[in-house]
């Protein structure tokens, strides 16, 4: 309790508050622009957090992430185009509500649901992480290997319609991760001194999450507003907070969707997009009038937006406790921690409890800021979708290059980011998803190191692995997650 209070005080420091306000605004702008994601904003600004204190940097990035996922719903509601993938389920009812002239009501439900979802998952992060961190101390190399494999296999199977494309991406990421030192200490595939420690994670992230997105924007000209846009409907000043009378009818939906979102978020590889759809389906199933869903039902918007934001913070649980990120955005948070010399995993809770609790309590403050900023500025943010691609693209490219240079102050990194970005764009054009590649590149060293230790420790008695239930469960789940898409396609 004392740690929580101390953490809250630390999170409320004026510098942290400014960082979170700035983060919320940046996140909302990036989230609201279709084609750009919170991950892109976090990646571009990640190198800048190097000059911040660790908790300030992490809170800044978390504020961007949370606000980005929320703001993705704004174009989903007014344009029928989700700002980020996480808001895909919001379009189902959000746009239908806008067409009925109820865009304000939908936006009001969206900001309230996002805040509640993030609040509940903040509680999950606060109360589930410490016991899970203690539990994770029981993890040996076999369990860590199996868990990391499970996270990667889930994202491989869920990120693309084609399992082959997902697998190519995941294995490419694993291959990238072999550059640098092998677990034995020998150097592999190192032809320039800049790559002696492998590919810098931040450069890989900048390359994969800014350049392909910008090129994609230029190619598709996706910001062009259609005639059916409902941006003008929300242009007048109005109260964007939910009315007290609405609480009674929606309170159960808020709670159920928060629970679903928090649970899905904890699963590695799943994330806000899946949480949104699962919760939407559950809300429809539980509704007295399921036929109204898809035709402009406010419960549909609440279910999708509450769950996708709930999945944001809870996805940090495996990342912080085991050091194994379950999503690309969590990778960025881990990269920020590593940049400050902090090692995610169970020891983080022992050695840096003050920082951990400052972050845990800070997410509630960031959430409150998001509610205020979101309520005041949703109508202005809706207009951001009118920014032209020709203006936006050069700005993002300049910031990406500034970010790439700032990591190690050298031009090699800038060229590397551009090359990785162009490769990423090529893969994207081939319908190969980039998320498994990033996860593979991050999880690669963890997988290989633990596999190496496992082989060494169980050499000659490999059958003993069968007696380790956690290992067996995660290996079976990994196989199942790869087999499921194959079985599904055979059936359907």
């Amino acid at each position, binding site marked *: 309790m004392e740690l929580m209070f101390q953490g809250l005080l630390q999170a409320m420091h004026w510098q942290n508050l400014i960082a979170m306000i700035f983060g919320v605004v940046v996140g909302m702008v990036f989230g609201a622009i279709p084609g750009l994601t919170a991950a892109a904003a976090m990646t571009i600004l990640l190198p800048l957090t190097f*000059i911040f204190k660790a908790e300030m940097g992490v809170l800044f990035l978390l504020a961007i992430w949370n606000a980005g996922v929320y703001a993705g719903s704004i174009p989903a509601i007014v344009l029928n185009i989700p700002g980020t993938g996480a808001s895909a389920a919001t379009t189902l009812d959000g746009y239908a509500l806008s067409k009925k002239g109820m865009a304000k009501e939908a936006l009001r439900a969206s900001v309230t649901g996002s805040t509640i979802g993030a609040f509940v998952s903040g509680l999950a992060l606060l109360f589930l992480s410490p016991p899970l961190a203690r539990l994770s101390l029981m993890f040996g190399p076999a369990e860590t290997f199996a868990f990391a494999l499970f996270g990667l296999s889930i994202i491989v199977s869920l990120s693309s319609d084609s399992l082959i494309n997902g*697998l190519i991406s995941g294995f490419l990421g694993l*291959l990238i991760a072999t550059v640098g030192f092998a677990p034995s200490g020998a150097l*592999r595939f190192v032809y320039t001194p800049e790559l002696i420690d492998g590919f810098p994670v931040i450069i890989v992230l900048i390359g994969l999450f800014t350049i392909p997105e910008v*090129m994609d924007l230029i190619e598709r000209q996706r910001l062009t507003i259609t005639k059916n846009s409902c941006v003008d409907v929300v242009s007048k000043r109005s109260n964007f907070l939910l009315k007290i009378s609405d609480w009674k009818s929606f309170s159960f939906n808020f709670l159920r969707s928060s629970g679903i979102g928090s649970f899905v978020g904890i699963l590695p590889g799943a994330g806000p997009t899946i949480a949104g759809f699962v919760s939407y389906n559950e809300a429809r199933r539980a509704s007295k009038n399921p036929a109204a869903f898809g035709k402009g039902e406010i419960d549909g918007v609440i279910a999708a937006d509450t769950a996708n934001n709930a999945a944001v913070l809870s996805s940090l649980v495996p990342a912080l406790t085991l050091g194994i990120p379950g999503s690309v955005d969590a990778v960025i948070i881990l990269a920020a921690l590593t940049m400050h010399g902090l090692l995610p995993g169970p020891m983080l809770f022992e050695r840096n409890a003050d920082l951990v609790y400052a972050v845990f309590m800070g997410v509630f403050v960031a959430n409150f800021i998001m509610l205020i900023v979101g309520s005041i500025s949703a109508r202005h943010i809706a207009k951001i979708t009118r920014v032209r691609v*020709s203006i936006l693209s050069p700005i993002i*490219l300049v910031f990406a290059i500034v970010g790439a240079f700032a990591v190690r102050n050298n031009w090699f990194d800038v060229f590397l980011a*551009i090359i990785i970005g162009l490769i990423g764009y090529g893969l994207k054009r081939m319908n190969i998803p980039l998320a498994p590649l990033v996860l593979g590149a991050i999880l690669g060293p963890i997988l290989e190191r633990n596999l190496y230790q496992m082989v060494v420790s169980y050499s000659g008695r490999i059958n003993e692995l069968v007696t380790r239930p956690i290992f067996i469960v995660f290996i079976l789940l990994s196989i199942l997650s790869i087999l499921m898409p194959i079985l599904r396609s055979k059936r359907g």
Partner: protein
Amino acid sequence: MASLSNSVGSGIILLCMIIALVLSFPLKLRDGLYPQCIILILLLLSVLRFVKDIKRRRKSIDEDKSLYKVLAAILLTILYVFSAELLGFWLSTVLFMITMFIALKEKNWLLIIIFPPALVLFIYIVFYKFLYIPFPQQSLF
């Protein structure tokens, strides 16, 4: 067209994996086995993808009109990085933004002229002077 570029892409992955496999030969078994397994799996997957793409190949469907803009953006970005090494970050950023605006057919000339120096000034004040972010320093600017 899309299918053709897909099979070309699969072919490129295939070629890269063969090169990676050759490069991994000098490694000791202990260090090379893991990457070699990954490369072999990738070889298999890219062959599968290649075959699938060839089977699906149809006649040209769409001629992408925006592709030249993407190529221009890629070329300008590479030129920008080279010019930043030579001319310095600030001047080359202004030039990059102006040329990008023109390449992407931005019609507002006032914006083309005013926005790039304004953005550079913003980056200079906020990131360089206030946040102390290191920027490339060259002989000119």
